[in-house]
């Protein structure tokens, strides 16, 4: 069964360092999402891609976060510099994005990357 892959699963870093997370969505899925989930809360969207284009990054702290999906397949999320408040689970999800109601498709989530900033 196809799955969304993420790496690393765990990352510990010191504040002011740079970190990067990688996501490989389900093959053929045009829409890719990065979410941040703080313990005890629901996932919060950081950025949404349709193919290689960003369609929503309104919640992405652009002074320190960046995301790219150069070939419209896998994606990288970077934080530079990391801050203590960035400690969270970073989730990647993908959906097929087909049809007129493409925003309504179920999303398939990866296992996440647990980031701890010391």
């Amino acid at each position, binding site marked *: 069964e196809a799955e969304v892959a993420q790496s690393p699963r765990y990352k510990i870093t010191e504040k002011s360092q740079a970190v990067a997370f990688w996501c490989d969505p389900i093959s053929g899925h045009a829409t890719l999402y990065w979410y941040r989930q703080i313990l005890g809360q*629901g996932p919060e*969207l950081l950025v*949404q891609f349709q193919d290689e284009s960003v369609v*929503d990054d309104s919640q992405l702290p652009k002074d320190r976060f960046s995301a790219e999906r150069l070939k419209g397949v896998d994606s990288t999320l970077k934080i530079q510099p990391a801050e203590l408040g960035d400690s969270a689970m970073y989730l990647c999800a993908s959906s097929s994005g087909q049809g007129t109601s493409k*925003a309504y498709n179920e*999303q398939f*989530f990866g296992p996440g990357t647990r980031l701890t900033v010391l």
Partner: protein
Amino acid sequence: SQKIEQNSEALNIQEGKTATLTCNYTNYSPAYLQWYRQDPGRGPVFLLLIRENEKEKRKERLKVTFDTTLKQSLFHITASQPADSATYLCAPSYLGGRRALTFGSGTRLQVQP
């Protein structure tokens, strides 16, 4: 801005009983609503989607209702089992939006054997 409310307190029930979880939303009218299950340390898993013109949706032991007047969705698990213990997230969205789902904070369900 839109607000999504799920009971933050954990729901504890006995095995075999029906669990009912509530999702309330304000300040907008979603065209559909999804429910996800999340186990500790893992990503959410899709369970059900219900559209605004549907009153009820069923899948095996799961049932979801959607009341657009009350701005509320109820999620039911009948004949609950300890394996149903998890956090359940509701995620309404809205017609025409490119924006991805907006998730509630989730309700943790604990089914006691």
